[in-house]
């Protein structure tokens, strides 16, 4: 049975004010439960594409449909369906305690206070963050901050979670924490899209890899088929593949 289509991108282009091409003529479809890596060197258009999925940027031409509805006409619905975790958690933290930070999205959606408290508590427990609920987010470790950012998205019940360089500036334990959270989210049915220029940590879990260059989608396919093409697009090939061992799990 064909999985259900969640996001449909049709001929989307975006050029910045200074004339730089962000993305050009993108045709893509994302399906329920997929784990997608969006790879490419810096400036290849990954972040620009991700921001279109959440309605932070709107296509200058073409169309993006989320669950069959045009993003530009259904912004709130889109942002509920597609949650976005940014590269730098420090600049996306709005609340002064972990609890308030996670509650922010639900307050915007005008949930009742009682429901907010219940949902936030549940998500914090699910992500093992409950013991930090009264902490100031700026005092947390890198991995914990990123998990708080994920909790802030997860509490809004998204179907798709988009990550922009989720492992940047994280130490090994932080990377492990975030990676296992992302894998659990995918196992629980969320569609995951990760933009990264370092695919080593997630390539084993990914079901699909999309390689971008100069705003264009250059390759789209299964990781095992494309792993040898990565370096020609400025993306490091995983060590195991380089040594002829194929794609090996990074996380035991």
């Amino acid at each position: 049975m064909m999985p259900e289509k969640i996001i449909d991108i049709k001929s989307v282009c975006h050029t910045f004010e200074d004339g730089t091409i962000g993305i050009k003529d993108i045709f893509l479809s994302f399906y329920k439960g997929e784990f997608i890596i969006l790879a490419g060197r810096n400036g290849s258009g990954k972040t620009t594409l991700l921001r279109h999925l959440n309605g932070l940027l709107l296509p200058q031409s073409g169309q993006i449909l989320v669950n069959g509805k045009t993003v530009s006409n259904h912004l709130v619905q889109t942002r509920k369906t597609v949650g976005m975790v940014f590269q730098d958690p420090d600049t996306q933290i709005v609340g002064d305690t972990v609890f308030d930070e996670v509650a922010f999205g639900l307050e915007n959606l005008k949930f009742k206070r009682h429901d907010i408290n219940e949902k936030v508590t549940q998500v914090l427990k699910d992500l093992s963050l409950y013991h930090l609920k009264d902490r100031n987010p700026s005092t947390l470790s890198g991995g914990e901050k990123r998990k708080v950012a994920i909790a802030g998205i997860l509490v809004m019940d998204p179907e798709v979670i988009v990550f922009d360089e989720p492992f940047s500036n994280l130490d090994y334990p932080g990377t492990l924490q975030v990676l296992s959270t992302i894998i659990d989210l995918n196992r629980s049915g969320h569609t995951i899209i990760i933009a990264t220029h370092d695919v080593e940590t997630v390539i084993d879990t990914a079901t699909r890899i999309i390689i971008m260059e100069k705003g264009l989608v250059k390759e789209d396919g299964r990781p095992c088929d494309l792993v040898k093409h990565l370096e020609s697009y400025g993306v490091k090939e995983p060590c195991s593949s380089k040594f002829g061992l194929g794609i090996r799990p990074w996380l035991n």
Partner: protein
Amino acid sequence: MAQLTPFTYRQGSSILHLLDARCKFFAICLVSMSMLSARLPVCLFYFLILLFFLKKAGLKFFTTMGSIKYFLMFLFFIFAARALIVEGEIIFSFHGISITKQGLNEGFLVAFKFFLVMLTGLVFSATTKPSSVKTAVQWFLKPIPFVPEKRVAVMISLSLGFMPIIAQKARDISDAQKARCADLEKNPVKKIIRLVLPLLKKTFLSADNLVLAMESRCYTDDRTDPEFAPSGKEIFFLVCSILISVGLISL
């Protein structure tokens, strides 16, 4: 990991932590205004009360003073200006510049009052979550027509929340410059420009990112109303604040 500034909220369970932010807001406004006409002995008594609350808030006095040293320098300028300007019994004179006894007394009192107001604010911000400050501001502004109270409250809350991040960025920039021998530069204006320009750039970029992050989580002015959680000790605290204010004015 960001370092805490003395103005950052610290988790705790002291009476000040538990009090409703509206009550604390009202109390600090009342006490700060009463300070205008207070005399030195009463100010000293109030200072002792503040020291007690400072300890309760988990702040160490000397460490706190170290981190507000620039403000203390500002107070010294106020003190010096008063000492030189106010006329009276001359203690010391040099090339027509005189320091008077009245000037020293008045300068010390004014600087000390400013110091107490700042310390009160510091105790308030260390024991009150920015979200509670936002909630209180929103509640106070609600009856005022044509004021978008929710927007103003969010702006205040974000400004308070961003202080430690900006301070951390300033430290990072300063350290990066020191690593390249920037402290050999003796011109203070050049030093400030070198620090301020990259700091502003980084701050604006962070603000842009924050806007995107808020937008991506459906930010709107029309949000779930905040929740107040009074501890039941507010009346007692307000009565004490009124008594302190009366004491500051009349004694």
